[in-house]
């Protein structure tokens, strides 16, 4: 049992931190203010081959695991890029997995390399208004027509849909009433985001303004048969495979963001002199920051345990959920504590921690709320009755 990064993993972490150091705190601040996608960052990460970290070599990836992907995404967030940087490349890093596992060799070669090279951007469209986390009840309908499907429906909280060329879409191919089980009858597609049939509307939101979240309205979008991933009706089972990696990455990112927040706070506390001494000399400043450090590192152990189990092919649902929960809570407390450490200056944008605080709410809420995680642990680990 080893709790340390291997030499190779440390090299990845350091290389990513070094790469990301090209993009300064002011770069991220400016993009957040303008609400502009970090095109330069996305392009540079794609060109340096990072987007394919967890993709097989056969499609232009590096063939590494979710552990390495988590280490990379953590370093991306920790560099000061936060959730803005992470979310701008999150899709390619983990959500192409269904194509690797269930796509044909032709689909893999056609769909994956352009995304990894950064020539195309993608979005991942599952969630819908009204159904929340009750995914099997989604209403977007893909109806069989000659040569493919005709799709109508609405999606919400679709990151990057406004800049994406491709959409990975979950839609119902068999009506719920006609299915024996509610998890049946859903299908997964990866297709052109044809703006003649797909309208995207940015959702005004609290943070991460540079990476937009959208409402997506799909009207008579034709999807050819060859853009369906896996068998018809198997979509739910297919996307379930990606849920744990997503939680692991979000958890790793939350820890990264928490780390940069307390780093900034500690730096400020060392330098800021009030009453003739640095405020960092006060235990009232030290102890909350030290506690945040301990919580972040403990959460990270759970996240990495989940990643390691996933890469070994072991069950990791409980660990991935617990890790995401712990990391997001610790990340939130770290960003909040950083802001309190900086006091009034923390509220000013130029000190960056207020941006972190707005962004850390994302891994706290997404992709699954803390409430649902606690429900899951209560039910699966503690064997308590299902509460919902």
């Amino acid at each position, binding site marked *: 049992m080893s709790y340390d990064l291997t*030499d190779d993993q440390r*090299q990845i972490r*350091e290389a990513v931190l*070094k*790469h990301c150091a090209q993009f300064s705190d002011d770069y991220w601040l400016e993009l957040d203010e303008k609400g502009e996608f970090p095109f330069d960052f996305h392009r540079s990460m794609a060109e*340096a*081959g*990072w987007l394919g970290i967890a993709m097989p070599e056969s499609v232009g990836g590096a063939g590494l695991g979710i552990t390495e992907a988590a280490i990379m995404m953590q370093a991306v967030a920790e560099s000061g890029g936060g959730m803005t940087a992470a979310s701008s490349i999150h899709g390619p890093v983990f959500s192409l997995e269904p194509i690797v596992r269930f796509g044909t060799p032709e689909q893999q070669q056609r769909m994956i390399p352009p995304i990894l090279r950064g020539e195309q951007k993608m979005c991942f469209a599952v969630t819908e208004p009204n159904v929340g986390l009750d995914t099997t009840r989604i209403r977007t309908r893909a109806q069989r027509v000659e040569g493919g499907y005709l799709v109508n429906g609405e999606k919400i909280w679709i990151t990057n849909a406004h800049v994406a060329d491709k959409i990975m879409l979950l839609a119902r191919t068999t009506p719920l009433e006609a299915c024996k089980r509610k998890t049946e009858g859903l299908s997964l597609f990866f297709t052109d985001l044809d703006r003649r049939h797909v309208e995207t509307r940015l959702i005004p939101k609290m943070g991460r303004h540079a990476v937009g979240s959208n409402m997506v309205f799909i009207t008579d979008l034709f999807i050819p048969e060859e853009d369906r991933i896996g068998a018809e009706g198997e979509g739910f089972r297919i996307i379930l495979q990606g849920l744990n990696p997503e939680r692991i990455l979000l958890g790793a990112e939350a820890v990264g963001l928490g780390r940069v927040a307390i780093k900034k706070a500690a730096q400020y506390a060392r330098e800021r002199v009030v009453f003739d001494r640095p405020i960092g000399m006060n235990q009232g400043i030290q102890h909350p920051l030290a506690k945040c450090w301990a919580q972040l590192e403990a959460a990270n152990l759970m996240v990495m345990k989940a990643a390691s189990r996933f890469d070994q092919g072991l069950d990791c649902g409980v660990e991935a959920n617990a890790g995401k929960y712990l990391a997001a809570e610790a990340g939130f407390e770290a960003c909040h504590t950083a802001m309190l450490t900086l006091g009034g200056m923390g509220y000013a944008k130029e000190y960056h921690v207020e941006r972190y605080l707005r962004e850390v709410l994302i891994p706290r809420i997404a992709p699954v709320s803390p409430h649902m995680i606690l429900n899951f642990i209560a039910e699966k680990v503690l064997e308590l009755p299902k509460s919902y």
Partner: protein
Amino acid sequence: MKVLVAVKRVVDYNVKVRPKPDGSGVDLANVKMAINPFCEIAVEEAVRLKERGVADEVVVVSVGPTQAQEQLRTALALGADRGILVEAEADLEPLAVAKVLKAVCEREQPGLVILGKQSIDGDNNQTGQLLAALLGWGQGTFASEVVVEGDRVRVTREVDGGLQTVSLRLPAVVTTDLRLNEPRYASLPNIMKAKKKPIEVTRPAELGVDVARRTELLGVEPPPARKGGIKVADVAELVDKLRNEAKVIG
């Protein structure tokens, strides 16, 4: 042409170093280590020579502890072809390193050796010059431009107050200054490829080099803490203090 590049494992330039409490050296426990920035520039220059078709092989060599393999891997990820680690105690003197490098050069027969002008830990700025002298080769130090022309290399040197250009017969030794190039960022595919590139491990004794120290480190201490300034009432008092206390004007 084969290009040999020397790289050193040093404390990362972002780290604020602290002496050990007993003053016997710099505290390296849990300190982030990295490739010396000037050595990284040397690697980049060699890789660019290879990309331009001037060099056909780039060999990186490090003289240092086992962990210096990490820095060799970094250099391999930037594009070097193979590595040589001469495993030795961490703190060798420049003369010992130059002797080791000389032995490696005699074995490898490079057409050009590129080193950083100095390492950011010791700041000795000696190894390149010593190596050139030991080999009897020409040296172009503090390079801001390196152009290989046939059997010669033209090196633009950053000297006090301007630039000096020298032409050296190959083989030669070049040391890099800050403005020679901007090293690239290692790409993930190249990091993966670097894992498969060979690193040979040898020791000074196997190369027939005696690396025993000739100097003894007596102590390391931090610079004195900055003291607060003072306020002066008028220009006369300022001039008086500059003349009689600071003694910076006559």
